């Protein structure tokens, strides 16, 4: 059905919608009808897709279409300044809207994977990094003078990451093709045995044994099998996959090909988050190169009949698509709503066929493991978490960037080595992971203790942790897919509840409600997003009770809203401002 070429799947629904959005600034109802007809889909399904992904818009966006990252790690809000608001003010545009002259639209977005570069944003898909209050002014000028993007200062376009610590995998002098050669030489069973024996577990954070996943997929009945590389690196604070795709994409692709050989797949997909679209030219070049070298395509590595190729599918702004079944839905051109599991993707994945979905780093590691052997990999790490792990370190430290550590490393040591001073908290594994305070800095990175997909955000003692927890809680409310009741409603309730407490209007009753709602969302939600959405709150209630306690109102009960503010519309309409026109808000 698809042709492999130098461009992404032209006919993938998400890509078609993206092209229309590029061409027409938005996706009109007319376009929706046209596409529905073209794809023989119900109009409602196309509408549902457009409505689901944050990067698709039904109202025209500006010549300059900006998505400002509000990730707390990169520090858009620092030293009493909110760079996003500053930019909105300078450009005279409302956040979330297009300026009436149609020139600028400014949106807030969650982490764009530039956390080691300071405050950053995407302008027409291009990341601008290292923003400070001075550069905001200059940025506004560039936009107002309609300067073409390629003429903007190159130092804003810096997207590489510093590597501060290397271990097994980064030190491996991987020779392209070596992994495939070994795999072909050993045969599928032996190759699978290496992966299994190495103890490699999924690097996205969930930690499912990779060998077991591949074995289950290989054994599952199906007409075709698929290999999917999850490059939807959406967990705030993570950027190591972006770096891997920038620097070592060939090893990732080779890992996919190895998997394909083992499980018997002919088709692979690299599902790239929409925020990383700018990596596309590089990835296409790499794909072409792999094909030229016989590492993708037909008769790979000279093996007759071993045919495998990879298509890139680019998302459009939905964190939930990092969940493997949601990702598959998205690959199929649908809204990224997680499926009921079982059946798991290994038996019924893409188009209902057995599918392996692994993280970028997992494939990357697998390629090296095949070459160097299981024992090599197990030489570091812990019995339950073998090998090493890439961490994306950001936040309040002197040396943010990529670190490779063997599993079992303590948080304390990492903090020391990344130049973190006076740290009060570390968010490990992103908002969906674990927030720990000083008392827990002796804990170890590993599936048996602090599991992480790679996000490691450092918060110094001057941080207001309530702001951080609020930021993460808003993030989940924004990213909830809306499928199940507890997550759809609960995440917004948590957001409001927390806001009431954060602004000093909460009481012990509100804390009790916060705890109850958190537990409900955690236990009853449909998928991982919901299961983890309350983590920042539950963790901080545990580790930072003072950020709640010190804000409690000195009343036993407070209203849920500001009563006096609720009279403001009436005051305006009646032009009254007498004493009876106000209420003690009690809030």
């Amino acid at each position, binding site marked *: 059905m698809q042709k492999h070429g130098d461009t992404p799947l032209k006919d993938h629904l998400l890509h078609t919608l993206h092209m229309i959005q590029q061409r027409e600034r938005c996706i009109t109802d007319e376009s929706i009808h046209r596409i529905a007809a073209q794809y023989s889909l119900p109009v409602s399904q196309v509408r549902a897709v457009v409505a689901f992904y944050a990067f698709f818009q039904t109202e025209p966006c500006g010549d300059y279409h900006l998505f400002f990252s509000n990730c707390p790690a990169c520090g858009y809000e620092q030293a009493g300044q909110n760079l996003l608001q500053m930019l909105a003010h300078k450009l005279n545009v409302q956040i979330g809207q297009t300026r009436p002259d149609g020139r600028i639209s400014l949106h807030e977005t969650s982490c764009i994977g530039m956390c080691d570069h300071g405050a950053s944003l995407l302008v027409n898909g291009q990341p601008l990094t290292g923003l400070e209050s001075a550069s905001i002014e200059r940025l506004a000028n560039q936009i107002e003078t309609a300067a073409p993007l390629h003429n903007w200062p190159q130092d804003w376009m810096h997207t590489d990451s510093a590597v501060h610590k290397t271990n097994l995998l980064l030190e491996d002098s991987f020779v392209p093709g070596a992994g495939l050669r070994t795999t072909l030489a050993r045969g599928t069973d032996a190759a699978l045995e290496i992966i299994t024996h190495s103890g490699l577990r999924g690097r996205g954070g969930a930690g499912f044994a990779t060998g077991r996943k591949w074995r289950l997929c290989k054994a599952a009945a199906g007409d075709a099998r698929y290999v999917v590389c999850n490059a939807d690196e959406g967990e705030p604070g993570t950027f190591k996959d972006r770096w891997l795709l920038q620097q070592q994409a060939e090893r990732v692709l080779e890992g996919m090909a190895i998997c394909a050989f083992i499980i018997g797949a002919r088709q692979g997909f690299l599902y790239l988050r929409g925020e990383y679209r700018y990596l596309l030219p590089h990835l296409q070049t790499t794909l072409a190169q792999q094909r030229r070298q016989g590492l993708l395509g037909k008769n790979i590595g000279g093996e007759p009949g071993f045919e495998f190729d990879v298509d890139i599918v680019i998302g459009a702004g939905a964190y939930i698509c990092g969940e493997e079944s949601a990702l598959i839905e998205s690959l199929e051109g649908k809204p990224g709503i997680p499926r009921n599991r079982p059946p798991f993707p290994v038996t019924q994945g893409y188009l209902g066929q057995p599918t392996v979905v692994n993280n970028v780093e997992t494939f990357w590691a697998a390629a090296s493991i095949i070459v160097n052997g299981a024992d090599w990999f197990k030489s570091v790490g812990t019995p339950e978490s073998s090998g090493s792990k890439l961490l994306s370190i950001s936040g309040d430290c002197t040396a943010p960037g990529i670190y490779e550590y063997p599993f079992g490393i303590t948080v304390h040591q990492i903090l020391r080595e990344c130049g973190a001073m006076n740290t009060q908290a570390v968010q490990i594994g992103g908002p969906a992971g674990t927030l720990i305070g000083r008392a827990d800095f002796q804990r170890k990175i590993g599936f048996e203790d602090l599991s992480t997909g790679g996000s490691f955000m450092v918060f110094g003692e001057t941080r207001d942790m309530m702001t951080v927890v609020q930021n993460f809680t808003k993030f989940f409310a924004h990213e909830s897919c809306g499928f199940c009741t507890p997550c759809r409603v609960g995440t917004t309730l948590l957001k409001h509840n927390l806001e009431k407490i954060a602004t000093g209007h909460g009481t012990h009753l509100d804390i009790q409600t916060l705890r109850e709602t958190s537990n409900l969302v955690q236990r009853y939600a449909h998928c991982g997003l919901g299961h983890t959405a309350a983590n920042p709150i539950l963790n901080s209630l545990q580790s930072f009770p003072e950020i709640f306690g010190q804000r409690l109102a000195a009343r036993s009960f407070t*209203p849920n809203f500001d*009563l006096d503010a609720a*009279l403001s519309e*009436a005051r305006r309409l*009646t032009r009254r401002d007498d004493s009876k026109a106000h*209420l003690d808000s009690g809030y």
Partner: protein
Amino acid sequence: MNNSKLKLATTSLAGCFGCHMSFLDMDERLEALLEHASFDRSPLTDIKTIGNCDIGLIEGGVCNAENAEVLRQFRANCRILVAVGACAINGGVPAMRNQYSLQECLEEVYLHGTGIVNPRIPDDIELPLLLDKVYPVGEIVKIDYYLPGCPPSADTFLHFFEALLQGKTPELPRETLHYD
């Protein structure tokens, strides 16, 4: 009045008085209740300011500043505060106005209505200002018990009072639970 009696205050905020009517629907049984309970501030008496009470019954949601103040007075003076009926509990039918801005509602009634002379939005200082929305009472004060229904039936009231008079925690029998 007899001090050993339960002292009862009632008020209607943004309600329709239907809950009060349903209370009266106890009919002859009202007489028996009055042997154990006496009224403080209520639309049925001439007591205008609430004193210390055992039970406060609140009908209606909160739509204006005066509602909010009366509700707070009730909370401050009642040992047990009860939200009675759909409007008090979740805003009820009056909360249908929450679909519109206050301005739209006022303009429709006082500016654009049929046969209007001197169109203007009433703004006298004697009029309590309207809140932007109609709010459930539980979003403004702590509520101890809820008697749902539009209105709750007379039997529901009786169940509730009987339990209180017997010193029990009132629990609504499932069959009395209804929202319409």
